[in-house]
């Protein structure tokens, strides 16, 4: 039967080995693959300032982005493609809670400049290669979409 010291070796050995492989893969991911997949060359000062606004206001507390965040409001990774610039800016600059479908967003009332920055951020993230997420719905064409 397995002895206690063998069990300890299993734990320590397994941990060190897994960790080493994990660090190796992470290095490759971050140094080579992510810059390519996310088009890092397009990370303009405007996009970055959009990200600051994104963080400062905790938009992730209602929305998801890259499929992460809260489940209360629409996923925003492809919102630029889905709604276009004008719609997004209307939602961001609205002085009353934006809620065409009933559920309320915070009434940020952003300035034109801020809305442009956030829109640039959303446009940039929409161009990221996400291995096929979000999946294209199968039956979209047969259903009336309420835009």
């Amino acid at each position, binding site marked *: 039967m397995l002895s206690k010291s063998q069990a300890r070796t299993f734990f320590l050995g397994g941990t060190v080995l897994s960790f080493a492989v994990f660090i190796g*893969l992470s290095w490759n991911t971050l140094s080579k693959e992510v810059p390519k997949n996310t088009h890092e060359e397009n990370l303009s000062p405007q996009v970055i300032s959009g990200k600051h606004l994104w963080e400062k*206001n905790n938009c992730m507390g209602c929305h998801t982005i890259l499929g992460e965040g809260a489940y209360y409001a629409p996923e925003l990774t492809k919102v630029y493609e889905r709604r276009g610039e004008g719609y997004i800016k209307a939602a961001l600059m609205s002085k009353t809670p934006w809620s065409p479908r009933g559920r*309320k967003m915070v009434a940020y009332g952003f300035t034109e400049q801020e809305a442009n920055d956030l829109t640039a951020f959303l446009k940039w993230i929409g161009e990221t290669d996400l291995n096929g997420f979000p999946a294209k719905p199968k039956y979209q064409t047969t259903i009336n979409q309420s835009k």
Partner: protein
Amino acid sequence: MRYKSQKVAYWFFALSMLLLSLQIIYGFIMGFAHMGYDVLHTYIPFNTARAVHTNLLVVWLLSGFMGAAYYIIPEEAEHELVNIKLAYIQLISLALVGVVAIVGYHFNYWEGRKFLEIPRPLDWLVVVNVLTFLGLLLTTLFKGKKKTTTSMVLTMGLVFAALLYLPGMIWFDNQTMDSFFRWWVVHLWVEGVWELIMGGILAYLLIKITGVDREVIEKWLYVIVGLTFISGILGTGHHYYYIGTPKYWLIIGGIFSALEPLAFLGMALFALAMYRKGEKNHPNKLALSWTLGTAIVSFVGAGLLGLAHTVPQVNLYTHGTLVTAMHGHLAFWGAYGMIVLAIISYTMPNMTGRNLFNSVNGSMAFWLSNIGMLGMTVAFGVAGVAQVYMERIMGVDFGEVQKEIQVHFGILLICATMFTVGISLFIYEFIRYGRPNDEAIIIQ
């Protein structure tokens, strides 16, 4: 209880219960908002309620873990805690940082990163707090007579948890990189080092309650935490499927994360086997229920419900939907909520010298909270699956889908009420025990 300093644990448990109550209140605010009654929107918008709900969760669990460590380490090391006053200062500063963060969330003072909303200046206070805590534990262990496997695994879990907090404090311009390191904290905590903490507390409880030989229990503890890290570290890849990271994570994350339930299965089989094997008939049956309960419910919530959406082909559709919330609730409750309530149930009679563990309230608390949480999980699950089919497969607009699934949040709130009654009874019993005292010290 054998050492005076173990009494510190009581106050950490008390803080933990207070924060749990507040967490539940904010849960209800969100449940009502999902149902269409977002009445507090102007004062507590959804993102505030959510940040408060999840951060209180993490802090009440951490406070529970710290209490557990302050109780277990002196006993295992056979040495009084080196500095009791410092432990109380650490407690108060933990409570203060928590309060400042929570209040800040009501005034747009935070960072928009799920689970890591604490603003960076406050992060540094967290670091100082945790360093104080670890310093106290490590010096006690170092000066103590014994360094048992149980105490080492528990301490290792706590030390790694502190180290892993650091990558979450770095700023990245690139959202994908931000997310990449957010998972080093969130995933490597709950599916890695926190399992060491859980395993350590579980082993301690099993040794005390079942009376099975320490050597046997600790051998299996090594096997379980070994399985945890072997599957869990590379299993981080299940969060790197669709965030701008390369394709190889689909394979690596898929395979290793599918192995993660083994560690939880191991935990459940281990607890049940030791319970069968044990000859000791410990009178505290309530602590036994919570101990076996945590081992079993964590396997269901984390293991099975995790497995349900960890396959890349499934996750492509369920990623970032209410299906995730379903799994998040039962996993956190089963693995970490219940282990904290187990250690509280076991230690309260020992710290206060009162044996109230045969009360009806105690077992009602156990059953109502568990059945309530199971019902909430089902409600989230039904809402989640409906959301996935309508939104992700049929292509119906998000807002329209949410209207269709509002009804499930009514069910959720009914079950949440049951859960809340259970927790209220638990806290009522906690208060009924009264304060810890030195008369409860038993010299063995």
